[in-house]
């Protein structure tokens, strides 16, 4: 029973990683860049929720929903200001810029909110569910349900809608997509918007799970989500989902059965082993370099 309950909280944590990993993998697939500031969007969203709820006194759910708008705005703005001018620059310059943006967002949060951790409002309160001897936290169930619903919606969007198909076209061949009349710049903007919205939702559930947030809150889940995206095969949407969920389960199991202190080391160890045997990740495609 203990095992089952650990599995479920691992699933719930993993689904948060998966939401963040989706943003990494979509931006990588479409803009061909690693947006290392992506994790910090989580923190932006969490602080936005706190401002809306604690400082402005908005209803909790409304505050959390409005934080999505803030994250989308910040994500799109970062893309326009920091990344778009570097569209044809070498990948390393873009990577360094992304790291710079990450530090910028962290410092800005520090400047505005100070370095102390702040309590994150419990915007959802659900009674635990008792099945026999198994107790499942209500928040875990909500987290899992919402993230699974988002993943299904995203998969349908990518596979069935005109915009989703255009995103896949851009991700496969930018020039050919342009020749079809697809605006690559607009597609990249939309990708950043979607990724940031997902990060914001992830941030809210992360806050719900860990209760406290600070200016550096985004960096660890950001890195783990990046690991999850690579683990699943970067650029692959189902890969990011599976990678995120597996990562959450592995982390939780390692905490429960091996050692809390070692859990992160174990997570990264698993990544290294997987990449040794499958360098493109679980669902990654072989990349054909085109001239």
């Amino acid at each position, binding site marked *: 029973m203990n095992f089952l309950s650990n599995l479920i909280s691992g699933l719930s944590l993993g689904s948060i990683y998966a939401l963040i990993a989706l943003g990494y993998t979509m931006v990588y697939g479409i803009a061909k860049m690693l947006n290392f500031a992506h994790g910090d969007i989580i923190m932006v969203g969490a602080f936005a929720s706190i401002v809306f709820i604690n400082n402005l006194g908005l209803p909790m759910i409304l505050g959390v929903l409005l934080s999505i708008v803030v994250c989308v705005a910040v994500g799109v703005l970062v893309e326009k200001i920091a990344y778009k001018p570097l569209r044809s620059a070498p990948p390393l310059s873009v990577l360094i810029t992304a790291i710079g943006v990450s530090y910028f967002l962290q410092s800005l949060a520090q400047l505005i909110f100070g370095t102390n951790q702040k309590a994150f409002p419990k915007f959802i309160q659900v009674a635990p569910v008792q099945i026999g001897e198994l107790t499942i936290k209500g928040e875990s169930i909500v987290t899992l349900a919402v993230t699974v619903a988002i993943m299904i919606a995203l998969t349908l969007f990518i596979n069935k809608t005109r915009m989703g*198909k255009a995103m896949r076209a851009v991700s*496969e061949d930018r*020039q*050919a*997509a342009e*020749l*079809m009349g697809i*605006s690559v710049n607009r597609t990249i903007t939309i990708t950043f918007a979607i990724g940031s919205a997902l990060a914001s939702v992830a941030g809210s559930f992360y806050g719900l799970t860990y209760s406290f947030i600070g200016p550096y809150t985004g960096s660890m889940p950001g890195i783990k989500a990046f690991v999850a995206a690579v683990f699943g095969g970067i650029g692959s949407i189902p890969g990011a989902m599976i990678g995120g969920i597996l990562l959450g389960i592995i982390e939780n199991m390692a905490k429960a059965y091996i050692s809390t202190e070692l859990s992160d080391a174990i997570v990264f160890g698993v990544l290294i082993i997987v990449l040794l045997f499958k360098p493109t990740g679980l669902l990654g495609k072989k990349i054909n370099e085109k001239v």
Partner: protein
Amino acid sequence: MRNNMLKVDNINVYYGKIHAIKDVSFEVKEGEIVSLIGANGAGKSTTLKTISGLLRSKTGSIEFCGEDIGKTESYKLVSKGMAHVPEGRRIFLQMTVQENLEMGAYTSDGDIQKDLEDIYARFPRLAERKNQIAGTLSGGEQQMLAMGRAMMSHPKLLILDEPSMGLAPILVQRIFDLIKELHKSGTTILLVEQNAEMALSIADRAYVLESGRVVLTGTGKELAASDEIKKAYLGG
């Protein structure tokens, strides 16, 4: 006198320091098939990419249907009536045949379902494989798909870059038959080919490119009969 559909005036294109296109000018009139021929590296594809906005000229101008498109973003040209089938086909290999065709109709506000049916009627092979991933198609089928995809936007001007490349002779014949059919139904065509014999046989007019310059121009017949061309491009 027919109107100019495309007028390329004195363009110069550089890849870094390499001067790839030198003072190139030519025009395509409404309803024509115009062919650019020349050896590998003569600048044919570069010229086409400059027309469709993937590369920029440092000088001169490019007019499409009377409008200067020299600075127009590439993706805006499709809805103006230009479709470009790039070298190497560049279909979306990980998407299905039907999704590829839908991408061709990305800017279309017409009846996409009917257009799909038309394409499938023309290419029964594509109809059979419409739910298949395009990467599994043979080279000939991929070329059909690339052309079908371009036709989905009902272009006024269809730009074809080496449509016969890598295809068996029987398929080359089919592609050229298709080009003739499209031309008959009113599409203006700008064709780049290494297969100079085939290209000249269907072209109203042609331009010969050599190291980035237009060195010769004439009707398809004149050029096909010219000794210079025979020696350099027609293996005789």
